[in-house]
């Protein structure tokens, strides 16, 4: 007879207290000294260790002196124990790490001036911090040519320090055995198994994991130096997973997306689909100025007349909103307020593609839903449909909210009462609009997305919007005010979010401060994972 397994209450782990560099720290039993050091605010230098990978203990960089232990201990592979006294910067430990650094440097080409990793290279960092003042090497360095690993990956063999993070990621996280360590001794290099290529949908992570400039992204190659880059915490809009990312720009052009750690969503990783699909952010055919109808043509104007024209176009009509599932909760909320006032409805269409899970991490996948905020749109009362005009009635005022409406001919819209376009681009259909209101895209705005598990997460602004384009929530705030609402004047995205929290139970109690950069689960969606 089958019995129902009772979930056992998580037992409190035994805690141990140790001293690292004179600081006491208490950690759960089984924590490594290296991780305990992080909690105490002490970064023990390391290369092969990565919290998202199995421990290898091979670089020997994290050697520390543990009192009463006969030998220096690799802190990544040594468990913290009660009463341990650990010295990270004792003469003995420093000498050992200096030795490791010298060994790593003897065959390293030291070509930092032409290396993509320079400025964000752990070999540089630790060498500056505690490396040898001079190298004793008098012999020529060994040479290996660079290799194309396939996909987006380039392997600059000479820079490799054989930490094996890439091999362990492919084996133990991506479960795709394509990389290996070839040969032995100092002839050893990272190799690709015969007949294979590093084209796994998650392979790009090995570039991030590489602590030096050995594994490079062909896409990012020579695009920017690390110190030229501005970084904004953001959320990947590529699918409904909501991977936390760092959106990186150089002179306001997007040059790279990198994963930003979030234990609850994406650990340390992001997929190549999300990573490499960023060029649209910089598209140059953006609407930069508000346009209003003047007879047969649309003419550029200022914001006030444009808002007035839009308000006039929707006045007295039932409203239908064709929304993009990539709009922020803030924008969708104000759209829903417009909709509600006119007794209207709204719909959105989510583009889809094949799923690609990352097997080594629970509930992390490139989702079939290729949009960031379908869950948010649903929560705020929009209908998910294959037809973006699903539910539109004859005579409705149609608000097109950053939708291209691909496949819908202008004639099909003959039955609308009026058309207002609010968005970043100028779709075909905008030709028949009463007003076109230009908005910022997600890189130029701040706001929140709700991922497929109901986690509400913030993204921040990376750069200014083009022309006089404004965040959509601002445009909608003005439009609502123009229609006579007195409680819809917002000056900050956070104010819109606070209003959303007040009016919608799923967001109750949430503020930007409470979300932080990790996000929080909507009320009612807990336990979804």
């Amino acid at each position, binding site marked *: 007879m089958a019995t129902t397994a009772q979930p056992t209450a998580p037992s409190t782990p035994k805690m141990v207290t140790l001293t690292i560099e004179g600081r006491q720290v208490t950690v759960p039993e089984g924590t490594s000294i290296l991780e305990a050091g992080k909690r105490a605010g002490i970064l023990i230098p390391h290369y092969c260790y990565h919290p998202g990978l199995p421990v290898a203990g091979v670089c*020997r960089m994290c050697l520390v002196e543990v009192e009463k232990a006969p030998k220096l201990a*690799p802190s990544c592979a040594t468990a913290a124990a009660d009463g341990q006294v650990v010295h990270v910067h004792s003469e003995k430990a420093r000498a050992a790490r200096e030795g*490791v650094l010298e060994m790593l440097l003897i*065959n390293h080409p030291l070509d930092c001036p032409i290396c993509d990793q320079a400025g964000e290279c752990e070999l540089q960092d630790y060498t500056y911090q505690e490396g040898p003042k001079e190298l004793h*090497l008098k012999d020529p360095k060994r040479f290996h040519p660079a290799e194309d690993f396939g996909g987006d990956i380039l392997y600059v063999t000479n820079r490799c320090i054989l930490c094996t993070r890439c091999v362990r990621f492919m084996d133990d996280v991506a479960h795709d055995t394509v990389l290996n360590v070839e040969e*032995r001794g*100092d002839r050893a290099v990272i190799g690709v198994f015969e007949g294979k290529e590093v084209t796994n949908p998650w392979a790009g992570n090995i570039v991030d994991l590489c602590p030096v400039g050995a594994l490079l992204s062909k896409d990012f190659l020579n695009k920017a130096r690390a110190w030229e880059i501005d970084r904004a915490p953001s959320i990947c809009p590529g699918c409904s997973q909501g991977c936390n990312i760092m959106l990186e720009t150089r002179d306001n052009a997007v040059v790279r997306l990198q994963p930003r750690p979030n234990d609850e969503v994406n650990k340390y990783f992001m997929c190549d689909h999300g990573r490499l699909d960023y060029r649209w952010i910089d598209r140059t055919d953006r609407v930069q100025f508000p346009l209003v109808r003047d007879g047969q043509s649309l003419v550029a104007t200022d914001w006030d007349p444009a808002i007035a024209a839009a308000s006039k176009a929707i006045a007295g009509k039932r409203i239908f909103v064709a929304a993009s599932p990539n709009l922020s909760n803030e924008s969708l909320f104000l759209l829903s307020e417009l909709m509600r006032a006119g007794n209207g409805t709204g719909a959105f269409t989510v583009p889809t593609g094949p799923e690609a899970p990352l097997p080594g991490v629970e509930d992390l996948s490139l989702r079939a839903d290729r949009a960031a905020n379908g869950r948010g749109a649903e929560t705020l009362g929009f209908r998910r449909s294959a037809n973006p005009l699903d539910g539109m009635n004859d005579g409705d005022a149609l608000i097109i909210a950053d939708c291209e409406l691909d496949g819908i001919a202008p004639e099909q819209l003959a039955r609308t009462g009026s058309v207002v376009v609010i968005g970043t681009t100028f779709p075909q259909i905008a030709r028949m609009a009463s007003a076109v209101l230009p908005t910022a895209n997600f890189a130029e705005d701040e706001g929140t997305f709700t991922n497929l598990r109901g986690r509400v997460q913030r993204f921040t602004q990376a750069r200014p919007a083009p022309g006089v384009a404004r965040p959509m929530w601002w445009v909608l705030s003005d439009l609502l005010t123009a229609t006579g609402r007195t409680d819809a004047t917002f000056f900050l995205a956070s104010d819109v979010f606070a209003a959303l929290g007040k009016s919608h139970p799923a967001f109750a109690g949430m503020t930007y401060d409470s979300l932080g950069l990790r996000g929080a689960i909507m009320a009612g969606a807990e336990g979804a994972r």
Partner: protein
Amino acid sequence: MGYPNPVSPQETPVLSQYFGNQETISLDGWRKVGGYAALQKALGMTPAEIVDVVKASGLRGRGGAGFPTGVKWSFMKPGDGRPHYLCCNADESEPGTFKDREIMRWTPHALVEGCAIGSYAIGAETCYIYIRGEFTEPLLRVRQAIKEAYDAGILGANAMGTGKRIDIIVHKGAGAYICGEETALMNSIEGRRGNPRIKPPFPAVSGLFAQPTTINNVETLAAVPHIINRGADWYKSMCLSNPKSTGSKLFSVCGNIARPGNYEVVLGFSFKEFLYDLCGGPPKGRSFKAVIPGGISVPIQTMEEAEATKMDYEGFIEQGSMLGSGGVIVFDDQQSMVKQIARAARFFAHESCAQCTQCREGTAWTTRILERIRDGEGTAEDLDTLLLIADNMTGKTICVLSDSCATPVVSGIKKFRSEFEALIKKTTFHPVTAAVA
């Protein structure tokens, strides 16, 4: 016996008794000289009784580390519900060592019997014999012996009719020195790259296939049937010096010596007598210069040290070296120690598994410098650099291959510094001070 030389009366042939004997290779021949009586006896004892006998005999690991075998076996807890494994380390790759090869060539059933007793004593589900990839003849002999033993019902589901199950599987290595390191050996058996694992966990807790595992050397296991047959006291009585070193031990002798070969003596034997009497001293017209007594990983001894040595675990340490695997490499006065040490370093640089930074880079760097000195291109700082590298390579890595490479370098520079300096001085560059206008 000092196989292939005739046995000397000073030797104590126990394991080497049948070296060169074509009869004892087969099961019938082995049975005629009393083979498998020990296994029969052991299967009538409890595992704990066997462990106690081995403990009492004082038998220590013959692979190099010298850990007491009975104690190692007692770490295994038969009946803990997990499968146990015994691994026989027959990956004899230590340069200068060739004793296990002879055991497997002439008395493969001695090894099979030892493995069977060991398996039973530790409650092992399966015993793996990991044979060095380059050993073709020993591989064939051991495979044949295991086949004979299975056919005769000695191994299998009903071992010797006792209803107990003993299985032995031969695993052929692919030719990596590092696979003789116990955790690399386990990785190799599992089909992984032969890289040593971080300890802890130790093999007795999580070894082969993450289950409790014991690893013993061929010579260690081959000695077990003799101990079961003749008792712990007999074995313990074979001791000429320190009571912690008991029994007979095979020494493989090679290099510049009159009679190279395998010699079996009781531990504590005089190394001077061993070199000059048993092995016949240096080749005619030459004299000994140095000895590496336990395989190339141990420190080099000067002849003064060697001649004062009692051949046991403690005796070699007292005289600046280690017993190691018992691979005695002898150098005469015609040899350049720089060349020999450079050759040793090249071996380690070739065999480093490339995991740990200090070993991967250090072994190769050491080799480059030593070969440069050997070729007369050394510089005055080179010796200091070598010692610095050696210091960085000692006690800081997962396994001891790195330390093993540093050992002959440090002991070589310490004991034969003048040879290094002579080569370096030859090319010392004397800069002429430029006249200042």
